[in-house]
Protein backbone atom coordinates (compact mmCIF):
# COMPACT_ATOMS: atom_id res chain seq x y z
CA UNK A 1 0.00 0.00 0.00
CA UNK A 2 1.37 3.43 -0.83
CA UNK A 3 2.49 5.63 2.01
CA UNK A 4 0.43 8.74 2.34
CA UNK A 5 2.44 11.77 1.43
CA UNK A 6 1.03 13.79 4.27
CA UNK A 7 -0.78 16.24 2.04
CA UNK A 8 -4.48 16.08 2.63
CA UNK A 9 -6.70 14.94 -0.21
CA UNK A 10 -10.00 15.56 1.56
CA UNK A 11 -10.56 17.78 4.55
CA UNK A 12 -13.94 17.76 6.22
CA UNK A 13 -14.75 20.22 8.97
CA UNK A 14 -17.98 19.94 10.95
CA UNK A 15 -19.97 18.89 7.91
CA UNK A 16 -23.73 19.10 8.15
CA UNK A 17 -26.12 18.12 5.44
CA UNK A 18 -29.89 18.38 5.44
CA UNK A 19 -31.85 17.10 2.45
CA UNK A 20 -34.55 19.39 0.98
CA UNK A 21 -37.11 17.02 2.50
CA UNK A 22 -35.82 18.00 5.93
CA UNK A 23 -33.92 14.83 6.73
CA UNK A 24 -30.62 15.56 8.49
CA UNK A 25 -28.30 13.04 6.89
CA UNK A 26 -25.00 14.32 8.26
CA UNK A 27 -24.71 15.84 11.68
CA UNK A 28 -21.28 17.24 12.25
CA UNK A 29 -18.70 15.08 10.49
CA UNK A 30 -15.03 15.99 10.69
CA UNK A 31 -12.16 14.04 9.23
CA UNK A 32 -9.09 14.32 7.07
CA UNK A 33 -8.12 11.86 4.37
CA UNK A 34 -4.47 12.10 3.42
CA UNK A 35 -3.34 11.71 -0.15
CA UNK A 36 -2.69 8.08 -0.98
CA UNK A 37 -4.94 6.60 1.68
CA UNK A 38 -7.29 3.72 0.98
CA UNK A 39 -10.38 4.32 3.04
CA UNK A 40 -13.48 2.17 3.44
CA UNK A 41 -16.79 3.70 4.53
CA UNK A 42 -19.37 1.38 6.03
CA UNK A 43 -22.75 1.71 7.66
CA UNK A 44 -26.33 0.62 7.31
CA UNK A 45 -28.57 2.29 4.78
CA UNK A 46 -29.52 5.67 6.16
CA UNK A 47 -26.30 6.05 8.16
CA UNK A 48 -25.14 8.85 5.88
CA UNK A 49 -22.25 7.04 4.20
CA UNK A 50 -23.39 7.69 0.64
CA UNK A 51 -24.39 11.24 1.53
CA UNK A 52 -20.89 11.81 2.90
CA UNK A 53 -18.99 10.54 -0.11
CA UNK A 54 -21.24 12.43 -2.50
CA UNK A 55 -19.74 15.56 -1.01
CA UNK A 56 -16.27 14.46 -2.05
CA UNK A 57 -16.83 15.19 -5.71
CA UNK A 58 -19.25 18.02 -5.14
CA UNK A 59 -22.48 16.23 -6.00
CA UNK A 60 -23.76 17.52 -2.73
CA UNK A 61 -22.73 20.77 -1.13
CA UNK A 62 -22.60 21.16 2.64
CA UNK A 63 -25.51 22.91 4.31
CA UNK A 64 -23.13 23.59 7.20
CA UNK A 65 -19.40 23.24 7.71
CA UNK A 66 -16.63 23.14 5.14
CA UNK A 67 -15.31 20.49 2.80
CA UNK A 68 -12.07 20.88 0.89
CA UNK A 69 -10.88 18.58 -1.85
CA UNK A 70 -7.17 18.98 -2.65
CA UNK A 71 -7.33 22.26 -0.81
CA UNK A 72 -10.28 23.63 -2.77
CA UNK A 73 -13.60 24.39 -1.08
CA UNK A 74 -16.16 22.30 -2.97
CA UNK A 75 -18.74 25.05 -2.75
CA UNK A 76 -16.66 27.12 -5.14
CA UNK A 77 -16.59 24.50 -7.90
CA UNK A 78 -19.19 22.69 -9.93
CA UNK A 79 -19.33 18.91 -10.08
CA UNK A 80 -18.18 18.84 -13.66
CA UNK A 81 -15.03 20.71 -12.68
CA UNK A 82 -14.31 18.60 -9.61
CA UNK A 83 -14.56 15.53 -11.84
CA UNK A 84 -11.01 16.26 -12.89
CA UNK A 85 -9.71 15.59 -9.42
CA UNK A 86 -12.31 13.36 -7.78
CA UNK A 87 -13.84 10.55 -9.80
CA UNK A 88 -17.08 8.97 -8.55
CA UNK A 89 -18.00 5.54 -9.85
CA UNK A 90 -21.70 4.90 -9.39
CA UNK A 91 -23.03 1.58 -8.22
CA UNK A 92 -25.01 0.78 -11.34
CA UNK A 93 -22.96 1.12 -14.54
CA UNK A 94 -26.17 1.41 -16.54
CA UNK A 95 -26.73 4.85 -15.08
CA UNK A 96 -24.02 6.25 -17.29
CA UNK A 97 -23.48 4.05 -20.34
CA UNK A 98 -24.91 5.55 -23.50
CA UNK A 99 -22.32 5.35 -26.29
CA UNK A 100 -22.09 2.97 -29.20
CA UNK A 101 -18.64 1.65 -28.51
CA UNK A 102 -16.56 0.97 -25.42
CA UNK A 103 -13.94 3.38 -26.67
CA UNK A 104 -16.39 6.26 -27.10
CA UNK A 105 -17.67 5.63 -23.61
CA UNK A 106 -14.21 5.90 -22.09
CA UNK A 107 -13.35 8.99 -24.10
CA UNK A 108 -16.49 10.88 -23.02
CA UNK A 109 -15.20 11.90 -19.60
CA UNK A 110 -11.74 13.19 -20.60
CA UNK A 111 -13.26 15.13 -23.50
CA UNK A 112 -15.65 16.87 -21.15
CA UNK A 113 -12.88 17.82 -18.75
CA UNK A 114 -10.80 19.28 -21.55
CA UNK A 115 -7.96 16.79 -21.68
CA UNK A 116 -5.74 17.33 -24.76
CA UNK A 117 -6.33 14.77 -27.51
CA UNK A 118 -2.86 13.21 -27.33
CA UNK A 119 -3.19 12.67 -23.60
CA UNK A 120 -6.64 11.14 -24.06
CA UNK A 121 -5.16 8.49 -26.33
CA UNK A 122 -2.62 7.30 -23.82
CA UNK A 123 -5.11 7.56 -20.97
CA UNK A 124 -7.62 5.40 -22.79
CA UNK A 125 -5.02 2.78 -23.58
CA UNK A 126 -3.83 2.76 -19.99
CA UNK A 127 -7.23 2.30 -18.39
CA UNK A 128 -8.27 -0.35 -20.88
CA UNK A 129 -5.22 -2.35 -19.98
CA UNK A 130 -5.69 -1.76 -16.28
CA UNK A 131 -9.33 -2.85 -16.30
CA UNK A 132 -8.77 -5.74 -18.69
CA UNK A 133 -10.91 -4.35 -21.46
CA UNK A 134 -8.43 -4.76 -24.28
CA UNK A 135 -9.90 -6.06 -27.49
CA UNK A 136 -13.30 -4.63 -26.61
CA UNK A 137 -12.72 -1.14 -28.04
CA UNK A 138 -15.33 -1.43 -30.74
CA UNK A 139 -17.77 -3.60 -28.88
CA UNK A 140 -21.19 -2.15 -28.16
CA UNK A 141 -21.52 -1.67 -24.39
CA UNK A 142 -24.93 -3.35 -24.31
CA UNK A 143 -23.29 -6.54 -25.47
CA UNK A 144 -20.95 -6.65 -22.50
CA UNK A 145 -21.62 -8.75 -19.42
CA UNK A 146 -22.53 -7.01 -16.19
CA UNK A 147 -19.01 -7.46 -14.85
CA UNK A 148 -17.51 -5.99 -18.00
CA UNK A 149 -19.89 -3.02 -17.83
CA UNK A 150 -18.84 -2.42 -14.25
CA UNK A 151 -15.20 -2.37 -15.32
CA UNK A 152 -16.13 -0.06 -18.18
CA UNK A 153 -17.73 2.34 -15.74
CA UNK A 154 -14.56 2.42 -13.64
CA UNK A 155 -12.42 2.83 -16.75
CA UNK A 156 -14.50 5.76 -17.97
CA UNK A 157 -13.93 7.57 -14.68
CA UNK A 158 -10.25 6.68 -14.40
CA UNK A 159 -9.63 7.95 -17.91
CA UNK A 160 -10.08 11.47 -16.54
CA UNK A 161 -7.05 10.80 -14.32
CA UNK A 162 -8.58 11.93 -11.04
CA UNK A 163 -6.26 11.83 -8.03
CA UNK A 164 -9.13 10.65 -5.87
CA UNK A 165 -11.33 7.70 -6.75
CA UNK A 166 -14.63 7.10 -5.02
CA UNK A 167 -16.44 3.81 -5.55
CA UNK A 168 -19.97 3.11 -4.40
CA UNK A 169 -20.58 -0.61 -3.87
CA UNK A 170 -18.45 -1.75 -6.81
CA UNK A 171 -18.79 -5.47 -6.14
CA UNK A 172 -22.54 -6.03 -6.36
CA UNK A 173 -23.40 -9.40 -7.82
CA UNK A 174 -19.83 -10.27 -8.73
CA UNK A 175 -18.32 -13.65 -8.11
CA UNK A 176 -15.23 -14.14 -6.00
CA UNK A 177 -12.86 -14.14 -8.93
CA UNK A 178 -14.18 -10.84 -10.24
CA UNK A 179 -13.97 -9.31 -6.78
CA UNK A 180 -10.34 -10.44 -6.42
CA UNK A 181 -9.53 -8.90 -9.75
CA UNK A 182 -11.10 -5.64 -8.68
CA UNK A 183 -9.20 -5.64 -5.39
CA UNK A 184 -5.95 -6.17 -7.28
CA UNK A 185 -6.76 -3.26 -9.59
CA UNK A 186 -7.58 -0.98 -6.69
CA UNK A 187 -4.37 -1.97 -4.92
CA UNK A 188 -2.41 -1.08 -7.99
CA UNK A 189 -4.12 2.27 -8.30
CA UNK A 190 -3.41 2.96 -4.65
CA UNK A 191 0.25 2.08 -5.13
CA UNK A 192 0.34 4.46 -8.09
CA UNK A 193 -0.70 7.20 -5.71
CA UNK A 194 -4.46 7.43 -6.05
CA UNK A 195 -6.50 8.14 -2.96
CA UNK A 196 -9.33 5.62 -2.83
CA UNK A 197 -12.60 5.85 -0.97
CA UNK A 198 -14.69 2.69 -1.03
CA UNK A 199 -18.28 2.58 0.17
CA UNK A 200 -19.39 -0.96 0.79
CA UNK A 201 -21.61 -3.30 2.77
CA UNK A 202 -19.10 -6.08 2.39
CA UNK A 203 -16.90 -6.10 5.47
CA UNK A 204 -14.77 -8.88 4.08
CA UNK A 205 -13.91 -6.59 1.19
CA UNK A 206 -13.16 -3.80 3.61
CA UNK A 207 -10.87 -6.03 5.65
CA UNK A 208 -9.11 -7.25 2.54
CA UNK A 209 -8.13 -4.01 0.92
CA UNK A 210 -8.58 -0.88 2.98
CA UNK A 211 -6.12 0.67 5.38
CA UNK A 212 -8.68 2.72 7.22
CA UNK A 213 -12.32 2.13 8.07
CA UNK A 214 -14.94 4.79 8.78
CA UNK A 215 -18.07 3.49 10.42
CA UNK A 216 -21.07 5.76 9.90
CA UNK A 217 -24.07 5.72 12.19
CA UNK A 218 -27.01 8.11 12.14
CA UNK A 219 -25.14 10.84 10.33
CA UNK A 220 -21.98 10.76 12.40
CA UNK A 221 -18.68 8.93 12.36
CA UNK A 222 -18.92 6.31 15.04
CA UNK A 223 -15.52 4.71 14.55
CA UNK A 224 -12.42 5.73 12.63
CA UNK A 225 -9.32 3.57 12.53
CA UNK A 226 -7.65 0.67 10.84
CA UNK A 227 -9.97 -2.26 10.17
CA UNK A 228 -8.30 -4.18 12.98
CA UNK A 229 -8.85 -1.34 15.46
CA UNK A 230 -12.44 -0.89 14.36
CA UNK A 231 -13.35 -4.57 14.54
CA UNK A 232 -12.05 -4.75 18.07
CA UNK A 233 -14.76 -2.31 19.21
CA UNK A 234 -17.33 -5.06 19.49
CA UNK A 235 -19.84 -3.22 21.67
CA UNK A 236 -19.77 -0.07 19.58
CA UNK A 237 -20.22 -2.04 16.39
CA UNK A 238 -23.22 -3.79 17.90
CA UNK A 239 -25.06 -0.47 17.87
CA UNK A 240 -24.77 -0.37 14.12
CA UNK A 241 -25.77 -4.01 13.64
CA UNK A 242 -22.68 -4.43 11.46
CA UNK A 243 -20.77 -7.66 11.95
CA UNK A 244 -17.05 -7.97 11.21
CA UNK A 245 -15.92 -10.71 8.79
CA UNK A 246 -16.56 -14.21 10.06
CA UNK A 247 -12.86 -14.92 10.51
CA UNK A 248 -12.49 -11.84 12.69
CA UNK A 249 -15.46 -12.79 14.83
CA UNK A 250 -14.00 -16.26 15.01
CA UNK A 251 -10.67 -15.01 16.29
CA UNK A 252 -12.48 -12.87 18.86
CA UNK A 253 -14.66 -15.75 20.02
CA UNK A 254 -11.77 -18.19 20.23
CA UNK A 255 -9.94 -15.62 22.34
CA UNK A 256 -6.84 -15.24 20.20
CA UNK A 257 -4.40 -12.43 21.04
CA UNK A 258 -4.46 -11.22 17.46
CA UNK A 259 -7.53 -10.49 15.32
CA UNK A 260 -7.39 -11.98 11.86
CA UNK A 261 -8.74 -9.84 9.04
CA UNK A 262 -8.53 -12.42 6.28
CA UNK A 263 -8.41 -16.18 5.93
CA UNK A 264 -4.95 -15.89 4.42
CA UNK A 265 -3.72 -14.21 7.59
CA UNK A 266 -5.26 -16.88 9.77
CA UNK A 267 -3.87 -19.70 7.65
CA UNK A 268 -0.42 -18.11 7.65
CA UNK A 269 -0.46 -17.88 11.43
CA UNK A 270 -0.72 -21.62 11.79
CA UNK A 271 2.71 -23.20 11.85
CA UNK A 272 3.62 -25.62 9.13
CA UNK A 273 4.03 -25.62 5.40
CA UNK A 274 2.58 -22.49 3.91
CA UNK A 275 2.68 -20.47 7.05
CA UNK A 276 4.35 -17.09 7.16
CA UNK A 277 6.80 -16.05 9.79
CA UNK A 278 4.00 -14.46 11.73
CA UNK A 279 3.04 -11.39 9.71
CA UNK A 280 2.00 -8.51 11.97
Amino acid sequence: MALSTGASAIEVTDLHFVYPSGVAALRGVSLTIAAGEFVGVIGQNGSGKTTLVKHFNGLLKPTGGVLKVLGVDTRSKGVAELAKVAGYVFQNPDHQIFCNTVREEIVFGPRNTGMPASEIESSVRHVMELLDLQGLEDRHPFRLSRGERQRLAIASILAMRPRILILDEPTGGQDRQQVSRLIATLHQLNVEGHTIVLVTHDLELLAECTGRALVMFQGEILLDGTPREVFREVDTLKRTALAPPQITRWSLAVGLPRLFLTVAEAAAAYPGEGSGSGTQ
Partner: protein
Amino acid sequence: MARLLYTFALEGRSWVTRLHPMTMATLVLSVAIVAFSTLHLGVLGATLLVLLLFMVVGRLPTRTTLAPMVLILPLCFFITLIQTLARPEGIVASWNLLGREITISAVGFILGLRITLRVVLLAMILTIFFTVVHPAKFTKALCDLRVPFKYAYSFTLALRFLPLMLEELATIKNAQQSRGYDIDQVNPFLRVFRIFPLMVPLVLIALRRASTIALALDLRAFDARPDRTFFVDVNRGPLDLGLRAVGLSAAAVVLIAAIAGWL
Protein backbone atom coordinates in the same frame (compact mmCIF):
# COMPACT_ATOMS: atom_id res chain seq x y z
CA MET B 1 -41.98 16.34 -5.60
CA ALA B 2 -44.42 14.37 -3.49
CA ARG B 3 -44.28 10.71 -4.36
CA LEU B 4 -47.98 10.42 -4.50
CA LEU B 5 -50.48 13.08 -3.71
CA TYR B 6 -52.99 10.74 -2.13
CA THR B 7 -52.25 10.18 1.51
CA PHE B 8 -54.02 8.00 4.01
CA ALA B 9 -53.75 10.76 6.54
CA LEU B 10 -56.41 12.46 4.52
CA GLU B 11 -58.92 9.70 5.06
CA GLY B 12 -59.38 10.69 8.64
CA ARG B 13 -60.12 14.33 8.09
CA SER B 14 -61.82 14.71 4.76
CA TRP B 15 -65.21 13.33 3.77
CA VAL B 16 -64.24 13.93 0.16
CA THR B 17 -62.15 10.75 0.20
CA ARG B 18 -65.31 8.75 0.75
CA LEU B 19 -66.80 9.92 -2.51
CA HIS B 20 -66.97 7.52 -5.39
CA PRO B 21 -63.95 7.98 -7.69
CA MET B 22 -66.24 8.55 -10.65
CA THR B 23 -67.84 11.46 -8.84
CA MET B 24 -64.46 13.15 -8.72
CA ALA B 25 -63.92 12.23 -12.36
CA THR B 26 -67.25 13.84 -13.21
CA LEU B 27 -66.21 17.00 -11.38
CA VAL B 28 -62.97 17.09 -13.36
CA LEU B 29 -64.96 16.74 -16.55
CA SER B 30 -67.39 19.46 -15.49
CA VAL B 31 -64.64 21.92 -14.70
CA ALA B 32 -62.90 21.07 -17.95
CA ILE B 33 -66.06 21.76 -19.92
CA VAL B 34 -66.56 25.09 -18.18
CA ALA B 35 -62.91 26.08 -18.61
CA PHE B 36 -62.83 25.29 -22.31
CA SER B 37 -66.26 26.68 -23.18
CA THR B 38 -65.53 30.22 -22.27
CA LEU B 39 -63.01 32.82 -21.23
CA HIS B 40 -65.63 34.94 -19.50
CA LEU B 41 -63.90 36.36 -16.47
CA GLY B 42 -67.01 36.18 -14.31
CA VAL B 43 -67.68 32.52 -15.07
CA LEU B 44 -64.07 31.43 -14.62
CA GLY B 45 -63.71 33.50 -11.50
CA ALA B 46 -66.87 32.02 -10.02
CA THR B 47 -65.66 28.50 -10.80
CA LEU B 48 -62.38 29.25 -9.04
CA LEU B 49 -64.25 30.45 -5.99
CA VAL B 50 -66.39 27.31 -6.02
CA LEU B 51 -63.26 25.15 -6.12
CA LEU B 52 -61.69 27.04 -3.25
CA LEU B 53 -64.92 26.70 -1.30
CA PHE B 54 -64.93 23.00 -2.07
CA MET B 55 -61.45 22.71 -0.65
CA VAL B 56 -62.49 24.48 2.54
CA VAL B 57 -65.69 22.50 3.03
CA GLY B 58 -63.92 19.30 2.11
CA ARG B 59 -61.16 20.02 4.67
CA LEU B 60 -58.46 19.45 2.06
CA PRO B 61 -54.99 20.52 3.18
CA THR B 62 -54.25 23.72 1.28
CA ARG B 63 -50.50 23.25 1.34
CA THR B 64 -50.30 19.90 -0.41
CA THR B 65 -53.19 20.67 -2.71
CA LEU B 66 -51.92 24.02 -3.88
CA ALA B 67 -48.20 23.22 -3.90
CA PRO B 68 -48.18 21.66 -7.39
CA MET B 69 -49.67 24.88 -8.69
CA VAL B 70 -46.24 26.38 -8.31
CA LEU B 71 -45.15 24.25 -11.23
CA ILE B 72 -47.53 25.96 -13.62
CA LEU B 73 -46.67 29.50 -12.58
CA PRO B 74 -43.85 29.86 -15.15
CA LEU B 75 -46.23 28.71 -17.85
CA CYS B 76 -48.84 31.23 -16.76
CA PHE B 77 -46.26 33.98 -16.68
CA PHE B 78 -45.19 33.26 -20.23
CA ILE B 79 -48.73 33.04 -21.53
CA THR B 80 -49.56 36.45 -20.07
CA LEU B 81 -46.31 37.97 -21.28
CA ILE B 82 -46.73 36.74 -24.82
CA GLN B 83 -50.31 37.91 -25.07
CA THR B 84 -49.37 41.32 -23.68
CA LEU B 85 -46.60 41.78 -26.20
CA ALA B 86 -48.21 40.15 -29.20
CA ARG B 87 -51.71 41.51 -29.38
CA PRO B 88 -52.10 44.31 -31.94
CA GLU B 89 -55.24 45.82 -30.43
CA GLY B 90 -55.68 47.88 -27.28
CA ILE B 91 -52.08 49.13 -27.21
CA VAL B 92 -51.40 51.43 -24.28
CA ALA B 93 -47.66 51.95 -24.66
CA SER B 94 -44.87 51.29 -27.09
CA TRP B 95 -41.08 51.74 -27.32
CA ASN B 96 -38.48 51.47 -29.92
CA LEU B 97 -35.83 49.03 -28.78
CA LEU B 98 -32.89 48.24 -30.99
CA GLY B 99 -34.87 49.01 -34.11
CA ARG B 100 -37.84 46.82 -33.17
CA GLU B 101 -41.13 48.08 -31.86
CA ILE B 102 -42.25 46.68 -28.52
CA THR B 103 -45.91 47.19 -27.68
CA ILE B 104 -47.82 46.66 -24.48
CA SER B 105 -51.41 45.72 -25.04
CA ALA B 106 -54.00 46.04 -22.28
CA VAL B 107 -56.33 43.72 -24.18
CA GLY B 108 -53.53 41.23 -24.46
CA PHE B 109 -52.77 41.44 -20.76
CA ILE B 110 -56.38 40.73 -19.81
CA LEU B 111 -56.51 37.93 -22.33
CA GLY B 112 -53.38 36.46 -20.82
CA LEU B 113 -54.94 36.56 -17.39
CA ARG B 114 -58.03 34.78 -18.62
CA ILE B 115 -56.03 32.02 -20.22
CA THR B 116 -54.03 31.78 -17.02
CA LEU B 117 -57.24 31.37 -15.10
CA ARG B 118 -58.28 28.53 -17.39
CA VAL B 119 -54.96 26.75 -16.82
CA VAL B 120 -55.19 27.31 -13.07
CA LEU B 121 -58.69 25.84 -12.92
CA LEU B 122 -57.63 22.70 -14.74
CA ALA B 123 -54.50 22.28 -12.67
CA MET B 124 -56.44 22.77 -9.50
CA ILE B 125 -59.19 20.26 -10.18
CA LEU B 126 -56.65 17.69 -11.35
CA THR B 127 -54.57 18.18 -8.23
CA ILE B 128 -57.66 17.81 -6.07
CA PHE B 129 -58.50 14.64 -7.97
CA PHE B 130 -55.12 13.05 -7.35
CA THR B 131 -55.17 14.15 -3.74
CA VAL B 132 -58.48 12.56 -2.81
CA VAL B 133 -58.79 9.52 -5.03
CA HIS B 134 -57.27 6.24 -3.85
CA PRO B 135 -55.64 4.67 -6.93
CA ALA B 136 -56.88 1.18 -6.14
CA LYS B 137 -60.43 2.48 -5.78
CA PHE B 138 -60.14 4.32 -9.05
CA THR B 139 -59.02 1.09 -10.71
CA LYS B 140 -62.02 -0.71 -9.23
CA ALA B 141 -64.35 2.06 -10.37
CA LEU B 142 -62.99 1.84 -13.91
CA CYS B 143 -63.41 -1.93 -13.90
CA ASP B 144 -67.00 -1.50 -12.76
CA LEU B 145 -67.46 0.53 -15.94
CA ARG B 146 -66.25 -2.46 -17.89
CA VAL B 147 -62.78 -1.10 -18.61
CA PRO B 148 -60.50 -4.17 -18.89
CA PHE B 149 -58.38 -4.53 -15.75
CA LYS B 150 -55.05 -4.35 -17.49
CA TYR B 151 -55.82 -0.85 -18.77
CA ALA B 152 -57.43 0.37 -15.57
CA TYR B 153 -54.39 -0.83 -13.63
CA SER B 154 -51.96 1.17 -15.72
CA PHE B 155 -53.01 4.26 -13.76
CA THR B 156 -51.77 2.72 -10.50
CA LEU B 157 -48.58 1.50 -12.12
CA ALA B 158 -47.83 4.93 -13.55
CA LEU B 159 -48.44 6.59 -10.20
CA ARG B 160 -46.11 4.13 -8.54
CA PHE B 161 -43.29 4.14 -11.04
CA LEU B 162 -43.18 7.62 -12.47
CA PRO B 163 -41.58 9.02 -9.29
CA LEU B 164 -39.04 6.18 -9.43
CA MET B 165 -38.13 7.05 -12.99
CA LEU B 166 -37.64 10.66 -11.97
CA GLU B 167 -35.26 9.48 -9.27
CA GLU B 168 -33.37 7.41 -11.81
CA LEU B 169 -33.10 10.47 -14.01
CA ALA B 170 -31.62 12.40 -11.10
CA THR B 171 -29.07 9.63 -10.52
CA ILE B 172 -28.20 9.53 -14.20
CA LYS B 173 -27.72 13.27 -14.21
CA ASN B 174 -25.37 12.95 -11.21
CA ALA B 175 -23.47 10.13 -12.86
CA GLN B 176 -22.89 12.13 -16.03
CA GLN B 177 -22.01 15.23 -14.04
CA SER B 178 -19.35 13.14 -12.38
CA ARG B 179 -17.92 12.68 -15.86
CA GLY B 180 -17.75 16.36 -16.50
CA TYR B 181 -21.06 16.60 -18.29
CA ASP B 182 -23.26 19.22 -16.67
CA ILE B 183 -26.50 19.87 -18.47
CA ASP B 184 -27.38 22.66 -16.05
CA GLN B 185 -24.61 24.73 -17.52
CA VAL B 186 -25.96 24.45 -21.02
CA ASN B 187 -28.15 27.20 -22.42
CA PRO B 188 -31.79 26.24 -21.63
CA PHE B 189 -32.77 26.49 -25.28
CA LEU B 190 -29.97 24.22 -26.41
CA ARG B 191 -30.54 21.72 -23.65
CA VAL B 192 -32.95 19.69 -25.72
CA PHE B 193 -30.17 18.86 -28.17
CA ARG B 194 -27.71 17.73 -25.51
CA ILE B 195 -29.88 15.28 -23.57
CA PHE B 196 -28.59 12.13 -25.22
CA PRO B 197 -26.29 11.10 -22.36
CA LEU B 198 -29.26 11.44 -20.02
CA MET B 199 -31.96 9.96 -22.19
CA VAL B 200 -30.24 6.80 -23.41
CA PRO B 201 -29.53 5.40 -19.93
CA LEU B 202 -33.00 6.47 -18.78
CA VAL B 203 -34.79 4.75 -21.64
CA LEU B 204 -32.73 1.60 -21.16
CA ILE B 205 -33.33 1.53 -17.45
CA ALA B 206 -37.02 2.15 -18.01
CA LEU B 207 -37.20 -0.71 -20.51
CA ARG B 208 -35.32 -3.04 -18.23
CA ARG B 209 -37.50 -2.11 -15.30
CA ALA B 210 -40.66 -2.51 -17.39
CA SER B 211 -39.57 -5.97 -18.42
CA THR B 212 -38.87 -7.02 -14.82
CA ILE B 213 -42.19 -5.58 -13.68
CA ALA B 214 -43.95 -7.48 -16.45
CA LEU B 215 -42.28 -10.68 -15.27
CA ALA B 216 -43.22 -9.99 -11.66
CA LEU B 217 -46.81 -9.22 -12.65
CA ASP B 218 -47.16 -12.44 -14.58
CA LEU B 219 -45.64 -14.44 -11.75
CA ARG B 220 -48.44 -13.10 -9.58
CA ALA B 221 -51.08 -14.28 -12.05
CA PHE B 222 -51.78 -10.88 -13.61
CA ASP B 223 -54.76 -10.95 -15.96
CA ALA B 224 -55.25 -14.64 -15.19
CA ARG B 225 -59.02 -14.54 -15.42
CA PRO B 226 -61.69 -12.05 -16.40
CA ASP B 227 -63.58 -12.37 -13.10
CA ARG B 228 -60.89 -11.05 -10.83
CA THR B 229 -61.96 -10.01 -7.33
CA PHE B 230 -61.11 -6.76 -5.59
CA PHE B 231 -60.11 -6.18 -2.02
CA VAL B 232 -61.20 -2.56 -1.98
CA ASP B 233 -64.75 -1.59 -2.59
CA VAL B 234 -66.36 1.57 -3.85
CA ASN B 235 -69.79 2.79 -2.85
CA ARG B 236 -72.07 5.35 -4.37
CA GLY B 237 -74.16 7.43 -2.03
CA PRO B 238 -76.73 10.20 -2.42
CA LEU B 239 -74.01 12.83 -2.09
CA ASP B 240 -72.27 11.33 -5.09
CA LEU B 241 -75.37 11.53 -7.25
CA GLY B 242 -76.05 15.04 -6.03
CA LEU B 243 -72.56 16.31 -6.79
CA ARG B 244 -72.53 14.68 -10.20
CA ALA B 245 -75.88 16.24 -11.08
CA VAL B 246 -74.81 19.70 -9.92
CA GLY B 247 -71.46 19.52 -11.69
CA LEU B 248 -72.79 18.32 -15.01
CA SER B 249 -75.76 20.71 -14.99
CA ALA B 250 -73.55 23.70 -14.30
CA ALA B 251 -71.21 22.61 -17.07
CA ALA B 252 -74.12 22.14 -19.48
CA VAL B 253 -75.50 25.61 -18.68
CA VAL B 254 -72.15 27.26 -19.32
CA LEU B 255 -71.62 25.29 -22.51
CA ILE B 256 -75.03 26.20 -23.89
CA ALA B 257 -74.60 29.84 -22.90
CA ALA B 258 -71.25 29.94 -24.61
CA ILE B 259 -72.53 28.37 -27.82
CA ALA B 260 -75.54 30.68 -27.86
CA GLY B 261 -73.20 33.61 -27.53
CA TRP B 262 -74.63 34.90 -24.26
CA LEU B 263 -71.24 35.03 -22.60
